[in-house]
């Protein structure tokens, strides 16, 4: 604690200066805040905030490791009533006999798969804490084919060398983009069963994505197409202000 003896005039000057500086800094803060609030939007959110989300994506995708698995639980802990949130991309009636999973290869060729072809691959079960971006979470049980198994079996190894996978519903009304490390993480499933039974329509029958390292918004229901790209594929919720990465 420094002690000083100063003249009254000097004290008045010092106090005045401190208050002017304080009020000035406060005004700058208010100005910056108003500017941020009124900024032009990019993907449904102020440009600076979008930049912040992208920077966070760079930082935290750098920390991502495929070896860090999502915690799993025994089937007995899975809930019976699984919450349904949103039906974007499911409003068009489904023609289940015509449904095929379309895989668009790097060279533009499209491969088509029936559900039975997919089911021939080894089946994997997972019970994990499904996390919605709204804040709720539920321990749920899903079964399907590991995406990484699917890639190996159908020789898509060159495709998964690209940076992103894009998925869309058959009617293209819902679509997500997913970074490849998350997509090939060993717990990512092309899922066709929930609680040991075929997926209900509102949970994405015949085939949906289950990607435990992401929020629910990325677990696209009723997959129509999967394609691969070095550029970020369009993402339904990222166009509406949400984080593109949305990963854990």
């Amino acid at each position, binding site marked *: *604690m*420094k*002690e*000083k*003896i*100063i*003249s*009254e005039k000097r*004290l008045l000057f*010092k*106090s005045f200066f*401190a*208050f002017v500086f*304080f009020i000035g*800094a406060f005004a700058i*803060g208010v100005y910056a*805040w108003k500017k941020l609030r009124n900024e032009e939007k990019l993907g*449904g*959110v*102020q440009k*600076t*905030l*979008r930049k*912040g*989300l992208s920077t*966070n994506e760079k930082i*935290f995708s750098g*920390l*991502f*490791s495929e070896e*860090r*698995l*999502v*915690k799993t639980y025994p089937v007995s802990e899975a809930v019976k009533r699984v919450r349904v949130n949103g039906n974007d991309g499911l409003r068009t009636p489904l023609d289940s006999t015509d449904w095929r999973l379309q895989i668009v290869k790097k060279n533009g060729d499209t491969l088509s798969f029936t559900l039975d072809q997919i089911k021939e691959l080894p089946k994997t079960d997972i019970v994990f*804490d499904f*996390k*919605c*971006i*709204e*804040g*709720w*979470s539920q321990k749920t049980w899903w079964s399907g084919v590991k995406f990484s198994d699917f890639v190996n079996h159908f020789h898509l190894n060159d495709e998964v060398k690209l940076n992103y996978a894009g998925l869309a519903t058959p009617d293209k009304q819902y679509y997500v983009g997913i970074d490849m490390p998350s997509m090939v993480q060993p717990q990512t499933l092309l899922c066709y069963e929930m609680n040991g039974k075929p997926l209900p329509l509102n949970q994405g029958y015949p085939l949906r994505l289950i990607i*435990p*390292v992401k929020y629910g918004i990325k677990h696209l229901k009723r997959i129509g197409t999967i394609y691969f790209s070095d550029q970020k594929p369009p993402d339904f*919720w990222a166009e*509406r*202000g*949400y*984080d593109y990465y949305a*990963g*854990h």
Partner: protein
Amino acid sequence: MKRIVTKHTLAVRWFHWINFPVLAIMTWSGLLIYWANDIYKIRIGGKDLISFFPNSIYAALNIPYHLAEGMAYHFLFMWLFFINGLLYVSYTALSGEWKYLLPGRKSFKQAWLVVLHDLHIRKGLPPQTKYNAAQRIAYTAIILMGFGSIVTGLSIYKPVQFAWLTWLCGGYEAARVEHFALTIGYCIFFIVHVVQVVLAGWKNFRSMITGFDVLPFEEKIIEPEPVPETPIITPVNS
């Protein structure tokens, strides 16, 4: 002439006044996020005592349907909150300011006396330096709470990559409750802090802006040199 004594260094004032709006933005954006799944209640004997939060509060603050915006603000300003907090803690540790801040062995007993004094039950305060015992406890607790917000926040934000943190918090859902409870803690701290600042008066508040306390200046009275006693010479009548 006036005597001034440094009370709050420039660094401390910066950290304090940056933290205030940043924490306000974090609380507000946190509320935008919380609204999307607002399930917390205080329930006693099967009756809802407090529900977080009533619709009237949401409506008054224009909270509903801003989840995406809330997350975008929260995940940008978290960096400012974190960096400012880290700099403050480093500064406090290195500058020796911690000596005025950390509670000591007697602080808990003395803090009780401070509370009694503030409630006008007891007269007189125990001796103190910059902060009294109650302030030491409160200001140290708020730093620990800040640390808690970062740990619980990271546990919710990246529960897979930081699974060990989430585990430390008792799981994902527990981390969310803790993160929320800490925020309620800040709000209570804020109310008490502002009331105390108002009661402490202008001079105390001024020192958080100017940095110094003004103390009475006592001029030393310069006494004249004592005059040596001279023998009284009386004329002798002869």
